[in-house]
Structures are given as structure tokens and as C-alpha cells.
């Protein structure tokens, strides 16, 4: 799960990381009073207005503006609030800016990068830091991997003081800003740990001309598996930032991801669902979605699955691929028969059922009179569904 910058910074602040602070505005009417509030609260006369959307690359897309005075802050706030911001992560359709974050402006001496995530290779947490902050870290990693310092944390021991010192020394911090950096690294790890974050990133972490170390921008993602024990974090979810169909699917406990093609798929199991998309593509088609109906492929899930797949107007055919292990194919077949007859489908449906009670399922589908295209194997199913759309 993703959150906005201002929410990520709240988490940092609560855990003792100094942030470039500000307030959020959702209505144009509140812009001026909020700028006054920022000026008063943080004793500043210059501001930064930042679009709050989940996608990265906001600055390059024109969603982050420095404002040297109040009147320009008002102007830029009006411009950014309500704009459709396009970045390399939003896709060409862009993302509507519903919230802006108006913050104090800082005099920046130097920018750094620091982030914590899980290193899957070692099953340990890794802290990555670089003196090349404020830029795309993937690019630094590709071009100058030696500029990224890594420290691994034993999850049972936690982050050690010597590790925080090592990071601060190697990044070149000195004197009082060294002490600040050490404290920030410890606080960042604490924030990562107590919130069950999957990524906690400060980019950039800045050293100001006054010698203070401050988080200028922050990104937190969270482990969905841990949300049951992170009620506060779960409350930060902003469904406006997600695809509405995916949000609806989530409510039905279906795992759906929209893609750009025209062949809808409904599959049980994530691996088989990906493999089904892959074979559609190999046969010359384009999958319209990922949809894992999980272990309980019954009438309701099949019906909801159809509804969600067909809400995408690009879909010209649907492939159902169910490998029944625990799930009985005859039950799935009944689900398909009922769903197809109730929903009055306008696109062809190719059905491949294998595994437990597959023979009974085939007989049921044949005798039902509903119009579906049966297939024996994965190969045949993919070939047939691509044939009907081309």
C-alpha cells in the first residue's frame, strides 16, 4: 500500500526525523490562509507547493514549484491544485491533483539519499544511502554503484549504533550535522519497523546552509500482509489514487490488475494467472488484465469476476482457465453456467477446466446450452481465445 508524501512525513516526524514541514490544502478557498499558517508556524517567507499524488516524478511533471513570496505561492497553488499531472509513472492519462502540500522553503547546501527495504537475497533489511541525493537512485545504481553505501540489519538484532555511525561517516557528515544524521538514520529505521513498511525512503535528505539535516521528500510503502495490525497505517489509504475497478475487485476479495489488451482472463492462482497472460501474448493476443479468483471459484466469484473484467470496454473475449486442485471443476462449471446466463454476455468466452472433476464439468457445460467455447489444454484455450479476437 502506498501513501502521500505529507503522510510519510508525518510518520517520520512522529518518529523523530526533522522534516521540511507544511500543511495540506484540498480546497482553493483555503490556499491563502494555509500559506499564512505555514509562514507563521515555520517562520518562513518563501514556500514550496507540492502536488500530492502517489506517482513519482512530480517535479519533472510540473507538480512541485518553489515560490519566493506569498503571491507566487498563491498563484502556483491555484495552478497545481486540480491540475492533471503527467509523470513517467502516471501513464499518458495523468493523475488529478486533489491535494497540495504547502511547505517552508529551505536553503539547501547538499542533497543525500537514504532508504530502507528488505533485501530478498539475504532475507534481511538493507539500508541504502548515497551522497548523490535528489536524483533517480536507479540511475545512480546503474552508473555509479560504488556511490551507494549499503548496511544490512539482522531483523532479530535491529539497527545498531555502529551502523548508523558508519553511514554518517561514509556520507561525509561532520560535527553537529553528523550527530543529526546518526539520529535520523536510527529514527528512520524505527519508523520502518513500527509501521511494517516495505520501503521507507527519504530522497532527498538535505543538509541546509544552516547545518541542519532535514527530510525534504519521503516515500513509504507498506506490507499489505501486516495491515491487520497497522490500523493507523491502513487509515492512510487514498483510494482516489487507485484504479476504481481494482478497488471494486478488492472489495470482492478478487485480485485484479488492469492492463491495456483486449483478452480478459479469469484464473485461479497467481502463478497460473501470469502464465495464462503470457501464453495469450505468445499467441499474438494482448491480455486485458490479471485476475486471480483464488481458491473459492464459486458462482459469486465467477459473476463478480465477469462484471469486473467486462467493465473494461476494451475486452473483446474472455478466457477462463481453472486448474481444480481443492476447487472442484464441476462447481466452477455451475458458476460459469449461471453467470453466463444471468449476465447476458456480449463477448465470446473460452473455458478450460482441468483437474478435480474436470470430466463432470465438461459434461455440465456441454449440456447446459450456454454459449461458451470449450478447450482441453492451456495451449488450445489460448489459441482459441486469440482467434476470436483477431
Amino acid at each position: 500500500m502506498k501513501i502521500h508524501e505529507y503522510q510519510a512525513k508525518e510518520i517520520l516526524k512522529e518518529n523523530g526525523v526533522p522534516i521540511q514541514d507544511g500543511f495540506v490544502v484540498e480546497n482553493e478557498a483555503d490556499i491563502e490562509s494555509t500559506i499564512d499558517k505555514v509562514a507563521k508556524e515555520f517562520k518562513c517567507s518563501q514556500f514550496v507547493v507540492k502536488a500530492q499524488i502517489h506517482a513519482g516524478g512530480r517535479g519533472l511533471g510540473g507538480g512541485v514549484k518553489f515560490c519566493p513570496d506569498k503571491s507566487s505561492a498563491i498563484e502556483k497553488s491555484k495552478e497545481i491544485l486540480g491540475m492533471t499531472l503527467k509523470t513517467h509513472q502516471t501513464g499518458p492519462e495523468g493523475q488529478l491533483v486533489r491535494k497540495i502540500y504547502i511547505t517552508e522553503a529551505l536553503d539547501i547546501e547538499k542533497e543525500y539519499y537514504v532508504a530502507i527495504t528488505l533485501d530478498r537475497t539475504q532475507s534481511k533489511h538493507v539500508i541504502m544511502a548515497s551522497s548523490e541525493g535528489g536524483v533517480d537512485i536507479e540511475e545512480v545504481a546503474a552508473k555509479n554503484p560504488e556511490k551507494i553505501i549499503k548496511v544490512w540489519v539482522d531483523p532479530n538484532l535491529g539497527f545498531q549504533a555502529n551502523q548508523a555511525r558508519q553511514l554518517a561517516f561514509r556520507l561525509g557528515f561532520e560535527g553537529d550535522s553528523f550527530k543529526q544524521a546518526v539520529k535520523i538514520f536510527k529514527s528512520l529505521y524505527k519508523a520502518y519497523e513500527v509501521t511494517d513498511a516495505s520501503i521507507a525512503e527519504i530522497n532527498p535528505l538535505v543538509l541546509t546552509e544552516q547545518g541542519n539535516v532535514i527530510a525534504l521528500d519521503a516515500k513509504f510503502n507498506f506490507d499489505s500482509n501486516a495491515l491487520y495490525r497497522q490500523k493507523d497505517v491502513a487509515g492512510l489509504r487514498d483510494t482516489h489514487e487507485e484504479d476504481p475497478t481494482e478497488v471494486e475487485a478488492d472489495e470482492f476479495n478478487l485480485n485484479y490488475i488492469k492492463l491495456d489488451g483486449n483478452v480478459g482472463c479469469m484464473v485461479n492462482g497467481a502463478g497460473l494467472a501470469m502464465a495464462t497472460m503470457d501464453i495469450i501474448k505468445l499467441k499474438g493476443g494482448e491480455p486485458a488484465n490479471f485476475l486471480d479468483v483464488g481458491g473459492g471459484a464459486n458462482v459469486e466469484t465467477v459473476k463478480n469476476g465477469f462484471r469486473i473484467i467486462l467493465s473494461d470496454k476494451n475486452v473483446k473475449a474472455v478466457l477462463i482457465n481453472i486448474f481444480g486442485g481443492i476447487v472442484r471443476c464441476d462447481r466452477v462449471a455451475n458458476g460459469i453456467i449461471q453467470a453466463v446466463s444471468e449476465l447476458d454476455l456480449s463477448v465470446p468466452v473460452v473455458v478450460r477446466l482441468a483437474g478435480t472433476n474436470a470430466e463432470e464439468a465438461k459434461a455440465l457445460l456441454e449440456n447446459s446450452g450456454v454459449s461458451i467455447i470449450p478447450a482441453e489444454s492451456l495451449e488450445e484455450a489460448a489459441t482459441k481465445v486469440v482467434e476470436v479476437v483477431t
Partner: protein
Amino acid sequence: MSILVNKDSKIIVQGITGSEGSFHAEQCLAYGNNVVGGVTPGKGGQKALDGKVPVFNTCFEARQQVAANVSLIFVPPAFAADAILEAADAGIELVVCITEGIPVADMAKVYTYLQSTNTRLIGPNCPGLLTPDEAKVGIMPGFIAKKGSVGVISKSGTLTYEAVHQLCQVGLGQTTCVGIGGDPVIGTKMADLLALFENDPETEAIVMIGEIGGSMEIEAAHFVKNNVTKPVIGFIAGQTAPPGRRMGHAGAIVSGADESADAKKAIMAECGIVVVDSPADIGATVKKSLAKVTV
């Protein structure tokens, strides 16, 4: 021969009195497994599965009283990490955790702790293991598999069934099928199992089914290059998955260029693995590879 589980495995089921646990324990028993008991805290002394097996309060009791050496876990996600640790502390040698949805931070702690024990963990979020005609420790449907010479390693559930089904259709049985799980932190990685299959005299070929995300397939590929003499046939699911999106499995997310299907396939091929592009070609390709070996 087989790896990890066989007809002599003495299996207990943690969470045997829950709906999932009791259903699957019954299925394992019906497959002919030696299910020697179950563990549910507070229900020790009762009987489960219609009076067929004893229930213990702790894994320690189960270890002492029925000499269990394999534990199958169906405990809900909030308590599953603790259940794995309990089994390890009781000295159970193989722990298979089916539970889906365990917080990653919990599993990182468990994984690190297990390095100091003699316990091997399979999973979590996996379908478990199946040694055809001998032992079914997990939720794989027994009837789809048959005894034979191919070892199967997979991150997925139903895609494993698909591969096993294809193998049987071309007349190839399996030594052992292992679902390792689709989470970012899992107990046993592909390379560990490749080593076991390489040393198993009855395994003649190995199927390795991976997916996008992480670098386990790449580590496994290097292991194959340096240590495996038997043919390895590989498939990577998620060639069409967009970067940055989690495809169902918590671990199936492309977060860097080298985690994509294409990058993994290229390295696997360089390391001598026969990589299939289509998931429908797994069975036929294994058959072809074995034919080459015997010629």
C-alpha cells in the same frame, strides 16, 4: 527415492482443529500419509479427524509422544510465525507452512532465527510437497501426480499442478514436487532444492518454475551452472506483467530491471537451463531433454 518427505515421514498438523487444517489433514491421511497427530493449544488430549489422531497442546509434546519429524502448518497469518518457531524449538526437522499472508517482517525474523537451528522450512504461502504414492504434505491434489523421475520446484500453486499434469500427459512421473511459496521471504530457496534433487539418484530431470520479482531464479541458475549435471527445464511466469505492480503473490513484483521475466530467462539460458517461453510446453520439453540424455 525422493527428497524431504517419504512414506516414513511422521507428520503432525499445527492447526488441525481449524477448518482448513482438518480438511487437509484428512486429505493427507486419505493419501496414505503417516499423520501421527495434531497441535492446537488448549485442545491437548482430544482426538481429531473423527477420533483417528491425537491432539497435543504443544509441538514439544507431539515430538516426545509420537516422534513427529514433519510439521504441516495451517495456522492463521497472525500466529503462523510463532507456530513455525514452536516447531523448530521442538526439534521438528521439516516444517511446511501453507499459511498465506504472514507479515514479511515476521518472516525475516523467523528465517534469520532458523539459520541457527536444524529445521528446514518450506513456504510460507505455498502448496507444500508431494512425493507421489508416498507422502502428501500440503494441499496439492494427489491424483494429478504419479511416481517417476522428474523433480519439480515451483513458486506457484496451480501452475505447479499444470506442469505436473503436462508431465503425466507425456508419460513422465515425478520424484517429489515442491511448492516453495510466492512470498518475499521463504524458508527454502530454489538452489537448496536443486542440490537435493541433484543428489537424489532417482531424479533424472528437474523442472524449475519461477516468476517475476526477486533474484532467486538467478541464484538458482548460477547454482545449476556450477553444480547440477541433470537437465533443468525452466519457466518464468509474468512476462507480460507491468513493472511496479504486485501480481497476486507478495513477491511477484518487478522492482528493478534484473527482476523481469526476460532478464531472468536470459541468465537461466546462459547457465544451461532449457528455458521454455510458453507454459504449455513444459511437459513436452522435459520429455525432449530426457530423450537427449538417454541417447
